[in-house]
């Protein structure tokens, strides 16, 4: 008789993961079951990666539904720092809204918002030292706001105008700001992650005390570069924080296409012997607590941490995208972990350090700040109205311009 376990007992079938809901279906986020705030334990920063495995399947949360900060991950920040975080998030949102509109008006070619994800880069920037180097994707612009990078310079980059620090060479939102601990953004996904590990190794080699902090999307964790980064970070105990921003979507692909249905992104760390943390990414305090934990670990020569930030991409991927073509239009509003700005605002009010009136005033203040910067940038010029001199197209290809580039420049007549 044929062994039923032998081949051809049943024929094989190819599995393709699909999201629970598509346009026309009601949003279904029943798989998102956040534990109550305060429940997830906080291991000592010296905990071994082995003892940390469970953390890959928990969720670090500090802010409860009532807006109180509870549990062991509460970083116990003073009101001034909390208000600073709120301001940076609001500024980011105001900036995003304005630049999105400018793209829609044809004033630049492209823009990417970070709506709903502002707590992650904001809290990270505030929990790090200003000279720690950040290797980000295109959705962590809040780090620049948190580090007081001039808004007008960001706009000049977006407009590729004569004052663009990248000299018109990069698409909008691909900032570079070494003095602000912000590595040049690449359009090629995940390339920055192993580079951050290398920077961290260099810092360790030089007996420096700076660490590196890198961000990558859920979708881009599929790239080989992410996995190479994990191996190098683990092997060399690099002082680096590797953040996976799981905003559920990678353009039109839900996180299951990146393997998120089978396990958590934090659990990627287990195979590499790196400690994992999994955090409510819409909870400013939880993100702050997690980054501070990982930073302390890195600074004391205990090596890397992988943090999955569980969040939601509220807007389209970019100005080239229409998310209602692939997900229910109401899905963003149904996200069970709320809005990071609203949650921090509520907390500040609960602790008696904020009010609706002050919030309104702050919203107005940041909108004014964006408007003033926009006026200044637009006076220099939007895309096509103003730009660096054409001869700069041939510069910085090499340190010294070789003969063939000189000749090409002359041929163009610049």
């Amino acid at each position, binding site marked *: 008789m044929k062994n039923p376990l032998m081949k051809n007992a049943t024929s094989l079938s190819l599995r393709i993961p699909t999201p629970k809901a598509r346009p026309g279906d009601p949003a279904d986020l029943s798989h998102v079951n956040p534990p109550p705030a305060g429940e997830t334990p906080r291991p000592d920063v010296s905990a071994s990666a082995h003892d940390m495995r469970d953390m890959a399947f928990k969720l670090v949360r500090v802010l409860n539904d009532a807006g109180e900060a509870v549990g062991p991950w509460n970083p116990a920040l003073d009101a001034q720092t909390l208000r600073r975080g709120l301001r940076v998030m609001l500024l980011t949102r105001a900036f995003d809204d304005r630049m999105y509109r400018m793209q829609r008006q044809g004033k630049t070619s492209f823009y990417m918002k970070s709506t709903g994800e502002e707590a992650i880069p904001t809290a990270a920037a505030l929990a790090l030292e200003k000279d720690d180097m950040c290797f980000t994707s295109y959705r962590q612009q809040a780090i620049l706001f948190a580090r007081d990078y001039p808004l007008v310079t960001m706009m000049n980059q977006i407009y590729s105008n004569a004052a*663009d620090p990248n000299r018109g*060479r990069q698409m*909008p939102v691909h900032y570079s700001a070494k003095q602000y601990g912000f590595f040049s953004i690449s359009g090629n996904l995940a390339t920055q992650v192993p580079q951050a590990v290398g920077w961290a190794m260099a810092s360790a080699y030089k007996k420096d005390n700076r660490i590196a902090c890198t961000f990558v999307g859920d979708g881009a964790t*599929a*790239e*080989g570069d992410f996995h190479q980064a994990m191996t190098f970070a683990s092997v060399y105990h690099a002082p680096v924080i590797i953040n996976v921003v799981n905003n559920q979507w990678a353009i039109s692909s839900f996180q299951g296409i990146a393997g998120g249905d089978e396990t958590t992104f934090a659990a990627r760390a287990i195979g590499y012997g790196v400690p994992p943390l999994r955090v409510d990414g819409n909870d400013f305090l939880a993100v702050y607590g997690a980054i501070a934990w990982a930073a302390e670990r890195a600074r004391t020569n205990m090596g890397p941490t992988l943090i999955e930030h569980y969040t939601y991409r509220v807007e389209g991927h970019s100005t080239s995208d229409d998310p209602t073509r692939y997900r229910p239009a109401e899905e963003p509003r149904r996200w069970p972990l709320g809005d990071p700005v609203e949650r921090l605002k509520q907390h500040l009010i609960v602790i008696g350090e904020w009010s609706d009136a002050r919030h309104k005033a702050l919203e107005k203040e940041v909108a004014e700040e964006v408007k003033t910067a926009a006026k200044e940038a637009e006076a220099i010029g939007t*895309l096509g109205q103003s730009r660096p001199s054409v001869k700069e197209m041939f510069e910085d290809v090499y340190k010294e311009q070789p003969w063939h580039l000189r000749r*090409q420049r002359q041929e163009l007549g610049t």
Partner: protein
Amino acid sequence: MATMTMIQALNNAMDTMLAKDPDVLIFGEDVGYFGGVFRATDGLQKKHGITRCFDAPIAESGIVAAAIGMAAYGLRPVIEIQFADYIYPGYDQIVSEAARLRYRSAGDFTAPLTLRSPYGGGIFGGQTHSQSPEALFTHVAGLKTVIPSNPYDAKGLLISAIEDDDPVIFFEPKRLYSGRFDGWHEKPVETWSAHPASDVPEGYYNVPLGKAAIAREGQAVTVLAYGTMVHVALAAAEFAKIDAEVIDLRTLVPLDIETIVASVNKTGRCVVVHEATRTSGFGAELSALVQEHCFWKLEAPIERVAGWDTPYPHAFEWEYFPGPKRVAAALTRTLEA
């Protein structure tokens, strides 16, 4: 017959092959439910089923490698790399594996896969949505490289690529997807429907690989072009009022050397154009071949018009893009030489 844009013709080619051959399947980033960021696979998942056209993880190396494995099994995978600029993580799998599988196993295993990818500039995509990396593939033994310039050819060539038993790199000039862009960027783009090549048969047909087309007959000078640059060359000939013969190569490897040699022997002059950077570009190969085959008939040095040897810069789209004026100047120089 139907009137199709290039993107519709490509979609129709895949639709035709999915229906014709159960071993054809399509995957790549965002190609499934959504139908691709340029809509090339729009509707194919719905029509043919989720295992025939599906989303891939963002891992170009994995996409190419999985296609090699499927092709080795006996399928005919058609994969999309979202932009040619993102092909590099898959380069090792293409060069070291797909290209050499037949050779190293003496035909024991083969990799009949088709890799489609939008390439080229003209969309303010900056350095990561504008590149023309074809020479990185024409340089590799074992790969075929195909670049269509109009809807009719796009469908026929893609069908030939899918049916070909070797790995084919199929670069699609994204600036031509929805209209016939000829480099005059200030003028409105001509719709494809105004062009005879938008008449596309709805069923199966093919355009053979390795055969060039003469896009414009002429006596004064031969222009070798492919993709968007075919239309730029035509515009340049008109602008310079030069009776150029414009050859649309269609396939770079294997190259239709007969058509090229016959034309240059007739005109005695040759201008080679491409969007890709000049140094070690495919134009260098074309120029060397013309020199080898037609030296005694040449009346002027062969000219190359190409992208500058810099990354593709966002703010300088039209200074970088080798438009009709630059091509026309080269045509004039060649005639005056």
